[in-house]
């Protein structure tokens, strides 16, 4: 069940794929059940004897379990290598850090590209619709299998932050602290609208074939790339785009045509789209964006977000937002903090001043680092971790 890959001399990386038997299905919010279930995951560091140092890192929309280890497809460092590592806020010498590929994903966990045991073919659109709560339930099943009852912390940005909030609502007794970065307790109309643009781009690609592209030996790469390009704009701020590219041209003079990108920003977006299709599955993109659209934590509590956190009074929360994030704005984080306060939960909150937009949580932000470091440090003291 487990394989060992040495990512860098400094970090010990473990992980593998948990394969649950057919009689242990994942019960989904839709009413369907998913079996057999596979959950791909990576771990960094070692679980202590008290089993009290486990940190679950939840990835964003198009992230995966390779949070701090070299990505097997792109060869790039893990998406949160800035935060997880020796001497960093999440130090594998102190914590046992777990990152799973969400259910519905395409990096080893059961998703639409997995083979449906009933037909022997990839699920495609017969894959059941999943939710953020389903992702979290699958993570809890993995923790059960790893023998971890209580998490020292659940941490995540963007969709990962939504999972953290869901953890606090569904498994408050299994959670000591929670860090929710650049996220929201519900997906707004504007967010859903952007997702719909992406999904329509995928479904408009003739190679999508009603979701059964694998059977035809093709992939809707053009549609998926356009979806990524549209989404990528929402991850950056106007100021960051202006600072990086302005109206700079790719070459001397305009092309007076449409084949080649004239502007550097076009070239950048095309690159983002083209490189994304190498590592991501179009149907997974449909399913995971759907899960995020369906996310409305207050919705399951009569529209009162505070009720979602009522059982989480012993959980310590840290909520962080970025001033130039217009995808999940500071207002969304403030709503979360107010609900936490209303529920009687202890919460810390900082809006970090930056022009880098939503993606700032992957980037060099000293205040983010010091806030995370301070929060984990204080929680480690509280939790008796040396």
């Amino acid at each position, binding site marked *: 069940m487990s394989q060992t890959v040495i990512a860098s001399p400094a970090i010990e990386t473990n992980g593998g794929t948990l394969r649950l038997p057919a009689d242990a299905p994942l019960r989904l919010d839709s009413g369907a059940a998913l079996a057999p279930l596979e959950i791909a995951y990576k771990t960094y560091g070692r679980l202590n004897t008290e089993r009290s140092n486990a940190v679950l890192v939840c990835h964003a929309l198009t992230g995966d379990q390779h949070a701090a280890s070299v990505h097997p497809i792109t060869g790039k460092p893990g998406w949160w290598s800035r935060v997880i590592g020796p001497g960093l806020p999440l130090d594998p010498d102190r914590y046992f850090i777990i990152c799973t590929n969400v259910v519905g994903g395409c990096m080893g966990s059961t998703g639409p590209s997995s083979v449906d045991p009933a037909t022997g073919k990839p699920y495609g659109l017969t894959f059941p619709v999943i939710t953020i709560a389903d992702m979290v339930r699958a993570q809890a099943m993995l923790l059960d299998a790893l023998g971890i009852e209580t998490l020292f912390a659940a941490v995540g940005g963007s969709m990962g932050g939504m999972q953290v909030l869901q953890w606090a609502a569904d498994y408050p007794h299994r959670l000591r602290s929670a860090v929710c970065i650049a996220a929201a307790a519900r997906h707004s109309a504007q967010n859903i609208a952007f997702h719909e643009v992406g999904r329509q781009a995928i479904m408009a690609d003739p190679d999508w074939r009603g979701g059964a592209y694998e059977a035809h030996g093709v992939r809707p790469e053009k549609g998926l790339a356009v979806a990524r390009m549209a989404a990528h704009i929402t991850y950056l701020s106007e100021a960051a785009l202006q600072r990086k590219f302005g109206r700079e041209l790719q070459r001397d003079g305009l092309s007076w045509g449409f084949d080649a990108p004239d502007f550097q920003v076009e070239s950048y977006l095309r690159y983002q789209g083209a490189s994304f299709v190498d590592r991501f599955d179009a149907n997974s993109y449909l399913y995971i964006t759907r899960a995020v659209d369906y996310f409305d934590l*207050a919705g399951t509590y*009569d*529209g*009162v*977000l*505070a*009720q979602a956190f*009522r059982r989480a009074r012993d959980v*310590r929360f*840290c909520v962080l937002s970025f001033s130039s994030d217009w995808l999940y704005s500071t207002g969304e984080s*403030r*709503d979360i*903090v*107010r*609900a936490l*306060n*209303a*529920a*009687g939960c*202890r*919460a*810390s*909150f*900082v*809006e*970090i*001043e930056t022009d880098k937009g939503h993606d700032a949580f992957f980037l060099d932000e000293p*205040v983010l680092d*010091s*806030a995370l*470091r*301070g*929060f984990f*440090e*204080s*929680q480690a*003291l*509280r939790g008796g971790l040396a």
Partner: protein
Amino acid sequence: MSGLREDFKEILRLVRPNARVLDVGCGEGELLELLTQEKGVDGQGLEISPSGVAACLAKGIAAVQGDGDRDLDHFPTQAFDYAILSKTLQQMREPRHVLSELLRIADRAIVSVPNFGHWRVRWALLTQGRMPETKALPEPWWSTPNIHLCTLRDLTALCDELGLRIEACAAVSRGQPARSIDPSRPIENWRAETALFLLTRERPRPPAPEPAATGDLFG
């Protein structure tokens, strides 16, 4: 303990052990850190500057970045035993509202203000005819954050008007131990450089409702 600010010492004396404390304008969390260490309080800070909040987090103090003028409204009723507002009331846009809110959120409020009726202030204004700059009010008029300065008499009058009971009052002057005073005595309005009040509501409130009742605000 000897190096402590006198107002901190007085606050430390007033706060019961293990109380739930909200410090509005908590800065880098010095007071909450002290109260946590000495009194085992369950503290929460509210601070406007991101670097202040980050410093609180680094000390293990829960702090929310926010504005005392705007964000107190979002705390539930009677969520705390004490709400502390240290030398900040005079910087608020709406001190009346803030004072009311402190005593909605908490059973007791500890509020300190520089006294504009202090003799040094009066003397400076009288002799120079210019806005006083004293050690308690060091900034010139054009850069001071103090937009709503008041005297001891002004504040006691406002407490009366809002139906707040002054449980205790102490004069805190530079380098001297806090001195318990009767704030209604005119002489204290001359002598107290800074006044620190422990306030409660005249009538005790009914028990706090569950979040469901307040939740509509936050849904």
